[in-house]
Every structure is written in structure tokens, then in C-alpha cells.
């Protein structure tokens, strides 16, 4: 009977990576137990490559349950004589990919899962596999969670899984690997683009921290990038410093759109960006005090590159909270205020004593700028510097000037303003809107005018206001500035809540603070690759990290691409190339998401790919004269596949040692005296 799933791994009893038998024992037992638990019809194929002379075969060295349930175990041996055919046979004891191919070629499952002998699957994952919802025309991939080495080999399945859940070290995602915090979030790194105390973490879609030659740190983002943050009650302002990358800018010069999805997944803000730009994102009060997930999205990005298979849409140099300014200075007495501000007050229209009183009150509370003591706010575009001409303190304001302000208890804002030259110093209508375009107030300004407007946000939240003048004229005379009006004071108003309009559901606001020319002009840099980039369209950026530990697709697809490249050298990058080949051979990637997990049991340095071990490994290989497919080679081949929309296949029809008769056994249940005994 055809099993639903073949699970294929390669091994030999050589203590590779240290503690090999325990890890294999855990892998084998966990799988058999899970297959039983979820009643998944499967076969577990272990290809035993080049078994070391003088050591027990895996069938003997491991303990095997008497009842393997719906899982059939098959151990297929590739004897030393076959291994000896290979050029580096003396130095490389195990040809992992050819071993896997030998298993694939002989597998009987409808779907084939290629993995390694130090992998444990989460229950949710096996449950999904057992639900028989796998589809042809897909290549299934998953993130890998590395866990500490001491998974209890004699523990129950649930104990082992519990250990894995609570001993995570790092996570291999599409973008790279990231050390994990104890709470499971990805660690920011020293010198990262956010402050150490910001509480901001970078989730899916963020590439690892990178640095320019100048030393400036940045992270690339792809089409979507998740920011995990704890928003202070009342909301806050996030500052982003970024620049378009080749993923959007390779073919034409901007502007490029970058948008924001809020924690509900709705599109709430977007910017149009050219060059290196500082952006502000005003976040409303969060729905709860937990970690929120918001996404940056690049709708027009996604172009492929030629020597780089990642999609690099934007370079983000900073992602941190923008501080709101507060102002303080001793308040002065009413009389002193009147005396100091007499020229201003004298220009107020006569008639309203209330307005006069309010103006004095506002001026009294004015700190060393025009803003009131204790007010929290931030000026956006359209504001000019503090002007203290003739003893009167004010700021000139241009068209569409932006002001962020945190709403106080009264949820209103009071201002003392006066028309400027751009409106002919005459009366004009001042319209105040939210960043979202909702009109908050329209006020007629005539002479020095006291204005009080409601703030359409809850107390403690940040309101983003845009000031525009109707009938403003272009700059006149020699002064190139637009000077619609000037503001002498600004602070909390005195209105009561009854006059306040209905709250907008979410007060997100996207502001552009500053912009300068980009550091890289990608359209010029990539000029001579335009055609190729255009031909690639928007290629998929596949999740190839740790793909040797989990790549699953229908048997036909494995045969279509003829398995892994059977390269007579170290198996670096072969698994990644397979993923791309499969993707272009009609099995596009599908990512399995948490709580589906694969756990990888940590092993010794220098025996396989771990970030710490990489240098060791290459030194060792180079010393022995063993070749491997370099990263550049891989990039080049991926570029071919993307340009030609076709898989690159390297094997001949005899792949997977099809012409060799390989001995195969089903291991018999027994307590192994060696290992299990010594454990006791």
C-alpha cells in the first residue's frame, strides 16, 4: 500500500556533530510516536551512507519500537564501495544530497518530506500532515527553530516537545536567522536600527542587520515587513529613516509608495518616497497593552536582481520612537504677561473681553517657545523658526503646516494667531484638518485672534493637525517663504467635551519630515541589467534557509527536478537550488506557519551549517581541497531560473543511484545493549 508521506533522512553512525545517536533516536522515536498519535500513514526512510567499518549499523545502534503503527521504517544502505566512487570520498564521509536522492528515488509515498535526523516536528505540524490536505503543485517549507542539545532522549514525546518549546535558541526564517529572546521574539542586535530600550522588534520580512562601508547600520525590507511593538497608552510617533532600494527602484526613478497595515490588517497610512527620507507615523492608542504587530508594505516593489536573490525594496536606517517635545519655563503673573505682550494684545479686535482673557491666560502659560508649559507636541512641516522680533515671540506658519499634539483633559487646543503677508495681512479662513482629512475647525482670523478648537482624539492620544489657509497667495517680494499667519501661543484650551466632534476610529497619520537625495541611484547602477530585471518580473524570493531540514512536495515534483544536484563536493547550497528548481518546475513555495514548527536539535560546532560554525567549516573544506558551490554560483543559477522562468536541473536520468541495488532492511525491535544500556 502506498503511504501518504515518505519522511527521508540520511545518516551514518559516526558521531557526526557529537551526540549523533541520541539525536537520531529522538528523531526516529518522535516521528514514529507522532505518526501513531495522528494516525498518519507514512514511511520513514533512513539512508545509511557509507557505514563506518567497526561500528554498529543504525538498525542495531538505535532502539526500535516493536510496534511502529502506521509508519513503516526502511533503512537503505549505500555501501562503502559506492561511496568510494566519489572524488572526495576519502575526505567527505557522507554525500548528503546523493544520499537523500537515493531515498527519494526509492520512496513510495504520495508526498515526500526531505529532512534531517536531528529534527522534531511540532504536534500541530504532524496533525496537519495527517489531515491529508497537502496539495500537488506546492512545495511546503517552514521556519526552523533551533533548540538546545539536551532534549531528553528517554523522555516521552510530550516531554521532548515541551523541552523544545522552552529551549529555543534561534529562528531560521526566510530572511535569515535571528537569535531569540526568552519570550520567543527576535532579538535586536547591538547597533541595531532601533534603540536598545525601544521595545521594537523586527519580525517577518526584515533582513538581518547590515552595514554600509561607512559603518551606518540598516536593514533591508522586502514586500512586507512586520514591526512588533508595544505602543504606549495614548499612542506614539514612530520615526522611520529609509531609502528606496533596487526592488522598487531598479527600473525607474521614484517616487515609491510605502504603506502601513495596522494591527487589524487594514491599510492606514502611506507615504510617497523619493530619496533618503525621514517619516513619521502617528500611532493611535493600542487596542490593548500587549505587543502589537504592524506591517510596512511596498506595493510596487518586488523586482528581482541579478546577483542577489533577495528582494530589497527599502533600506531602513532607523525605526524608533520619535520623542514628542515638552516645554517648560516659569509661568509669569498676569500683569507681567500683559506688559510683555502688550503689542500683541493691542492688535486684538475690540469687543470680546472673554477672548482677551483667554489670550492672556494662554500667553501666561507660554513656556520658552510659543507652546504652553506641559504641552506635548511635535512640529511637522510648514513651521518656521522662533521669531522674537521687537519683543514679540511667534512662529510664522506656511501652507499645510503639521502639528502633532497630545490631547489633554479638555481635548481642545487654544491658539493665538494673526494673518501674515501671504494672505495680505487681511482676514482669512483658517481650516484645521486631521491628517486623515477630516475638518476639525474653520475659523475666521482677523487681526490677532484667539482660536480654540476641539481635538478629535481621546484624552492622552496624539492628534495630528494640518493648518491651511483659504486664499493664501504665493510668496511676494523678496521673501520666498509662504507666511500665511503667525502663532504667538498654543496650549490646551478650556472647552468642555460637549463641543467635541465624534472620534475618528483610528488616528493614524503619515507625515514626511525631511527628504534628501538617495545614497544609491539604483536605476543607473543597474542600467545594463534592465532587460534581465524586466524579464524576471517580480520573482518569488524563496525561503531557502535551513531548507535541508524541511522540503516537502509531491513525488512527481521530486522526479521532475531529478532530486538534489549530485555534485561531487560539499553539499552547500544544493538544497536551496532545489527549492528554486522546484518553484520553477511547477511547485511554488507554500510556507507552513506557527504553531506548526520544526525543532532542530543543536549539535557541535563545525559539523553542519550553524552561524557560529560556518567559518570553521569552510576552513576545513578548503584545507582538504573539497569544492563546494559558492554563493555567487547559486545566485547566478537562481538568476537564470528567474530570467528563463524555468528550473535548472543538473542530474541525468540515473540520479539517486537508480542503477545500484542497495540493501534495504526493516529494523527489528530490540533494546540496544550499547546505548540504551549505558543510559540506564
Amino acid at each position, binding site marked *: 500500500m502506498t503511504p501518504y508521506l515518505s519522511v527521508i533522512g540520511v545518516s551514518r553512525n559516526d558521531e557526526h556533530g557529537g551526540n549523533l545517536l541520541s539525536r537520531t533516536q529522538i528523531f526516529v522515536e518522535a516521528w514514529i510516536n507522532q505518526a501513531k498519535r495522528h494516525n498518519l500513514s507514512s514511511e520513514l526512510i533512513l539512508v545509511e551512507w557509507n557505514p563506518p567499518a567497526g561500528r554498529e549499523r543504525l538498525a542495531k545502534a538505535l532502539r526500535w519500537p516493536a510496534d511502529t503503527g502506521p509508519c513503516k521504517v526502511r533503512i537503505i544502505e549505500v555501501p562503502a564501495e559506492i561511496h568510494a566512487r566519489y572524488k572526495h570520498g576519502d575526505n567527505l564521509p557522507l554525500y548528503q544530497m546523493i544520499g537523500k536522492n537515493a531515498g527519494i528515488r526509492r520512496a513510495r509515498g504520495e508526498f515526500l518530506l526531505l529532512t534531517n535526523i536531528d529534527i522534531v516536528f511540532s504536534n500541530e505540524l504532524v496533525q496537519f500532515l495527517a489531515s491529508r490536505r497537502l496539495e500537488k503543485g506546492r512545495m511546503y517549507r517552514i521556519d526552523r527553530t533551533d533548540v538546545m542539545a539536551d532534549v531528553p532522549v528517554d523522555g516521552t514525546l510530550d516531554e521532548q516537545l515541551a523541552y523544545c518549546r522552552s529551549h529555543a535558541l534561534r529562528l531560521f526564517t526566510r530572511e535569515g536567522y535571528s537569535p531569540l529572546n526568552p519570550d520567543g521574539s527576535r532579538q535586536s542586535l547591538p547597533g541595531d536600527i532601533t534603540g536598545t530600550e525601544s521595545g521594537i522588534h523586527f519580525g517577518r520580512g526584515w533582513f538581518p542587520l547590515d552595514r554600509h562601508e561607512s559603518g551606518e547600520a540598516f536593514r533591508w525590507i522586502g514586500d512586507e515587513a512586520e514591526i512588533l511593538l508595544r505602543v504606549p497608552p495614548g499612542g506614539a510617533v514612530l520615526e522611520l529613516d529609509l531609502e528606496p532600494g533596487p526592488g522598487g527602484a531598479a527600473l525607474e526613478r521614484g517616487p515609491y509608495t510605502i504603506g502601513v497595515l495596522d494591527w487589524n490588517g487594514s491599510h492606514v497610512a502611506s507615504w510617497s518616497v523619493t530619496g533618503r527620507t525621514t517619516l513619521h507615523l502617528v500611532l493611535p492608542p493600542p487596542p490593548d497593552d500587549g505587543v502589537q504587530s504592524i506591517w510596512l508594505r511596498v506595493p510596487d516593489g518586488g523586482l528581482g536582481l541579478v546577483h542577489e536573490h533577495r528582494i530589497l525594496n527599502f533600506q531602513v536606517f532607523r525605526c524608533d520612537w520619535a520623542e514628542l517635545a515638552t516645554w517648560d519655563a516659569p509661568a509669569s503673573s498676569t500683569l507681567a504677561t500683559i506688559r510683555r505682550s502688550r503689542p500683541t494684545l493691542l492688535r486684538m479686535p475690540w469687543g470680546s473681553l472673554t477672548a482677551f482673557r483667554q489670550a492672556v491666560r494662554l500667553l501666561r502659560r507660554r513656556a520658552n517657545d510659543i507652546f504652553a508649559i506641559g504641552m506635548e507636541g511635535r512640529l511637522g512641516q510648514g513651521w518656521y523658526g522662533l521669531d522674537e522680533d521687537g519683543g514679540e515671540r511667534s512662529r510664522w506658519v506656511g501652507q499645510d503646516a503639521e502639528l502633532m499634539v497630545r490631547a489633554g483633559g479638555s481635548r481642545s487646543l487654544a491658539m493665538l494667531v494673526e494673518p501674515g503677508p501671504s494672505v495680505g495681512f487681511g482676514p482669512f479662513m483658517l481650516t484645521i484638518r486631521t491628517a486623515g482629512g477630516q475638518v476639525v475647525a474653520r475659523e475666521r482670523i482677523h487681526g490677532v485672534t484667539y482660536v480654540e478648537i476641539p481635538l478629535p482624539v481621546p484624552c492622552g492620544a496624539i492628534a495630528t493637525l494640518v493648518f491651511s489657509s483659504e486664499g493664501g497667495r504665493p510668496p511676494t517680494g523678496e521673501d520666498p517663504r509662504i507666511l500665511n499667519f503667525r502663532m504667538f501661543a498654543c496650549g490646551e484650551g478650556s472647552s468642555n467635551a460637549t463641543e467635541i466632534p465624534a472620534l475618528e476610529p483610528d488616528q493614524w497619520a503619515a507625515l514626511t519630515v525631511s527628504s534628501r537625495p538617495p545614497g544609491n541611484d539604483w536605476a543607473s547602477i543597474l542600467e545594463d541589467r534592465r532587460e534581465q530585471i524586466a*524579464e524576471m518580473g517580480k520573482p518569488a524570493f524563496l525561503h531557502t534557509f535551513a531548507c535541508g531540514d524541511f522540503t516537502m512536495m509531491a513525488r*512527481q515534483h521530486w*522526479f*521532475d*527536478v*531529478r532530486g538534489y*544536484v*549530485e*555534485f*561531487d563536493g560539499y553539499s552547500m547550497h544544493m538544497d536551496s537550488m532545489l527549492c528554486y528548481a522546484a518553484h520553477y*518546475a*511547477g511547485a511554488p513555495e507554500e510556507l507552513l506557519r506557527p504553531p506548526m514548527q520544526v525543532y532542530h536539535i543543536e549539535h557541535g560546532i563545525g559539523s553542519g551549517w550553524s552561524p557560529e560554525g560556518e567559518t570553521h567549516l569552510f576552513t576545513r573544506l578548503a584545507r582538504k581541497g573539497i*569544492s563546494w*558551490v559558492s554563493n555567487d*554560483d547559486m545566485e*547566478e*543559477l537562481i538568476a*537564470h531560473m528567474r*530570467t*528563463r*522562468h*524555468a*528550473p*535548472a*536541473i*543538473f*542530474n*541525468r*536520468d*540515473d540520479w539517486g543511484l537508480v542503477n545500484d541495488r542497495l540493501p534495504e532492511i526493516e529494523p527489528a525491535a530490540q533494546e540496544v545493549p550499547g546505548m540504551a544500556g549505558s543510559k540506564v
Partner: protein
Amino acid sequence: MQSSYEDAPYLSVVATARNDDHGGNLLNRVQIFVDAWINQSKRHGLSSELIIVEWNPPAGREPLAEALRWPSDTGACRVRIIEVPRELHARYRHAAALPLYQMIAKNVGIRRARGEYIVATNIDIVFSDELVRYLASGKLEKGRMYRIDRTDVGSDVPVNGTLDEQLAYCRSHVIRLGAREGTYKLSPEGLRKNEPEDITGIESGIHFGSGFYPVERYRPDDPFRWIGNEAEILLRVPAGGAVLELEVEPGPGVGLDEGAKTLEAVGWNGSTAATWSITGRTTLHLVVPPDNGKGGAACLRLRVPDGGRPLVEDPRILNFRVFRCDWVVLNNQPAPALSDLAVLGEARPMLVRLLDGRRKTHGLMAMLRDGAGLCGRAFRLLEARGPDIAEGGLPFRCSQGWHELEGAGVERFRWVSEDAVLIVRTTSENQSLALLVEPGPGLDFGSFVLLARQADGSVLTRATIDGVTYVEVPIRAPRGTVMALTLTSERPGAPVGDDPRTLSFRVFALGTGRSLADARGSEVTPAPAETWAAQTITSRPSEVDWATFQEKWRPLTEEMGKPDFVHMNACGDFTLMAREHWHDLRGYAELDLFSMHLDSFLCWAAHHGGAREEMLREPMRIYHIEHGAGSGWTPEGEDRLYARIARQGIQSISYDELLDLIAQMRRLHGPVIFNLEDWGLAGDRLAEMTPQAKTPAMAANKVSS
């Protein structure tokens, strides 16, 4: 892979076409192809099938089965026409611009072919009888990809002629040759024509065969040709032999390390005739013996034993650049008419030194006895001199080891270093060559033993030189023989003072001496019939520092070892290998593109995928019937073709992309395959028919016109 078929033919011939008059005169060309193959298959008893894939037949035109005439008896050849209908064609992205997906069409045929071997070809190809005879001999092997040069012939192959008439036309209407190294026009005798500005003179009669690449230039006035591991020079040696001058510089193919690189010449008997050790741009001489009148061009090969290292940006193997390959013209100037008295007057001091030398070496009596005769002979030698030191009318060349002419009047000489080579063409039979020699500062002006060797190393003369000495070297050779003599002092000379030159001795005159019948010389063994001699004349630093250029590629090229440069020129017209190899490779890459380079790519994949290239050689040939420019590949049409592709926005694999893929295959020592298991439209049911014998409309048209 499919297992072998019952009663499978030995060979499947696969081609594709549609009745759209592609390239002009299409039906005629297909008719010739079909008729010729069926007739040859019959003639040589070759069990075959002829598969024509009719791709996207044009609406409103007859299908090929109707439009062509078919013999009632196709003998050992079964004809199969497989149709790929228009709906299927319409699946492709460029369906509107490209009416025929040539490579996918060929795959359709290959996938359905039943032969043990499959040759993919085109419908305007005629095979020579020798080629079909070879195919019928059953000597094809697995593990090989057979390739052949393509011979382009005129377009008027007689469509109604017999097979022999058609082949005779092809043989006598050759236009050009598509060879591994490039595409060449051919001379009437079938040799590759030289270019107007080439590395040999227009009248030299020297041609360059396989292993020589076409002329290139890095500077406008400095043409050169690269050579691979073995390069053929085809030449007619003048009677009596001649001297060939080569100017060469090592390229990246001989490795990037410093140090001398070896170049060898292989003579017509196949043995190594000369070996040079070369550093920098070097001028070489090769004394070439007569080829004993075998008639036709003789073939001299240059061989690079340590060559064959690859580049990344060029698939060719580039071992040496050859800047010049031409005959050396021997000096042959008449003697100026001078009166005996004038010569004698000037020669007197030298004759005195001559007598003095005789006295010192042989004693006073000998001087008195021989003096008069000696002086007479020396005098005649001086008298007969042309403007240089040689006798007027004696063709000679001072090759390596000689310095410029110095002095004036009778005291005119050339200084000689060690191992100086003198090339002369004898002007009479069995006569000695006389020299007037005097020791130089390199030997402290003291006496020394002069050895004269011939090219095979045998010593012709040992003579003690003391003062001015008259020496005769016996030469037993017919008149007109080109000889290379090496003159050496037994005691090695050395440079003196600031002069870096070694001035061992000087020669005042050389010319014809006494006939050997008179000479009291030692017994002389005649030179072997075929004696070659190699000299290095001058050398200067290389112009291109390949090591620096190629440094960044070194790790890559080292992994490639010494790969082959696969013959991909016109490979769409003939690529033959066992069926299992075609299946292994999944046929041609089925990319939705114009077919440019896809056939070359297959050859490289095959070569690296277990079917190594093997060339089928003359007189095996394929003839390609010329068609209108711009419809397929001809050198003249290439530019127009690219322009058309660009205009229609059709994508094709660029040459750079092909190079990348070749580099990958060379490094990974394996093929690159782009197709899936469904290649060759395996999943589609295609209509297939065997055409019926009848007189088609076309033949009728022919008659009425």
C-alpha cells in the same frame, strides 16, 4: 525513460518544418532533403525513420504530406509526419511573432523517435554518401555526441535531379564551411580562405585549418589568430624546403604562471618536428623540409602540450596568439662588379692574417705549401660577396645568433654568438660551403674549435680557428635544398666589458667552396630526407598580462581543469547521439524564446552529460542548401536577424548567458537541464501520419512552368 522498441530503426532523423516558404523556396529544399535521405537510406541499407514535425501548419496551405511528392517505396526508411496543431502553438508567449518553436518541435520528434540513435537536423541538409555509409556501418557508439562541420552550398541543387547529380552539385558549389572555430569561405581547393589582412602574405599559399580561430585585432594594425591545442597550417612547401617564420605570444590557455611555455610543431609524418620554449612575444623560424611531392597542401600542426586551460568569459581555448606565419625570404643579392685589383688591394691585410693563422696552426711549411691556394680561395670568396657577407646569388639568411652587418669595404663582417644558425639554399649539388672566420673578444681573440652542425645535430665540420681562417663545410644535398647550419664554438664564449652581446667570432664571407669531389674533407653522412630545424630569433615582453586579467577567475578556472571547446557551430543541423542521451538531457531546452543558442546549449549539456563530442571528419560531410538571408543563420544575415528579433520584442538566450551556463557546466562537470519530465509535449496526443505516394501539386506546377 522508454525502453527500446520492437523492430526499432537504427537511426531516427528528426527535423521540423511548416509549409510557409520560410527562407524562400522552402518546398524545394524540403523535397531535396527528403528525397536524398530516402535514397541514401536505400542505397546503404540503413534502417531509419525520417520524422518531420510539422509545427503550427499555416491555414490555407497544404500540409507537407500533400505539398511534397513521396516515393511509393521508401525502402529501409519509414517516414513519419507528426503535427503540432495551431492551438498548441498558441499556448506560447511569442506565438504571434514566432510561427515555429524549432527546439520544442524537435523535442516533439525526439520524444517520439524509436531509433537507437537520433540525429536532429534541418530540412535543408543533404548528407554526403560517405557520411551515410558510416551511419549504416553500425559503428556509432553510446557515450558520444557526434558532430560535423557544415558545408554551405549554392541554392540551385537540382530538385528533380538524381541523388548523384544533387551530391555532385553540392561538391562543386561550396560557398563556406561552418567549422568549430568559426565560419569560413573556402578556396577552390577546399581550404579555408585567408582574410584580406591576415597573418600570412596574400601570395604565401599558406592556409589555416582546424585549431586556428579567425583573425582578431587588439590594435588596428596588428592582426592575429588564436590557436587551440592543435592547429593546422596547410601549405605547399617550395621544392628543396623553406623556412617558415612564426610570431607568437602565449595566451591564457597555457596557464597564468610565469615561465616559458612550450610550443611544438608536428611534421607531416606525425612526429614532433620542433619544440620551442616561449616567453613573451617571440619570432620563431622553422626550417621545413620538402614534403616529397605528395601533391596538394601539406599539413603542419602546431601543438601546445601544456595548453587547454579555460577562461570564464570565452568558451574557447586560447593558447597562443599567432601574429605571423609566413615564408622567410632568403637574401639573394648580386655581387657588385669590382675590379680584382680593388678587391686585392683592400683584402691584403686580411690575407696576411690568413697566412699568419695557417702558419700558427699548421706550421711554416704548410703555410708555404698551401698559402697560394688558400689565398686564392679566400680572395674568390671576398670577391664574390654581395652587399652582405654572402656570395652574390647565394640565397641565405642569418637566423638566430647573428649580429648586424658591420664594417665597410672588404673588412665587412657579422659578429656571431653561440649557436648561430645559418640558413642557405644550395646552388649546386654536393658542394661545400666556405666561410672566412676570425676569433672575437668573446673567446679572447684566441684560437678555438668551430663546429658546424646540420639540423639533425650531426657535425659536418670541426675546424680550428686561429686568426683569419678559411673553413669549408661539406654539404651533401641536391641543388636547391634549404639547409640550416648551426655554428658553435666548442669552447663557450662570453660577453666582455659593457657590451651585453657575446661576440665569439666574426664571419667575413661565406659562399660556395670546392666541389666535394675535390675536397679532402672527412666522410659526411647526408642529412636525413626530412630534417626540421627550430630557432628562436627574437623575443620581447608580452603585450597582454593575462595573469592579471584573469586573476579574479582563477579559483573558477582551476576547478574546470582542461575542458573542451565544443563544436557548436551550426549544431542545429547535425547533432547525433543515442536515444538514451536525448532522454537523459530531456532534449533541447524548451524555453519560450527564439531558438538562438539553444542548440549550442544542448551540445554543451550533452558533452558534460555523458555524451562527449566526437567529430566526424572529411570526406563525411553535411551540405546545407543556401536560402534567403535573414531567415536562419548565415553570417550575412546575422545582423538582420538580430534586428528583426529586437523589433518584434522576442526574447532569446544571449551569448553572455550561454557563456555563464557553459562555465557552470565546466565547473560542476555536469549538464544543466531546463525541462521537466513532460518535455517534447509528452502529455499531448499529436496526430501522426505516413505520407502517401502521389504526384503532388508542386511537381505539376513545375512541369507547367
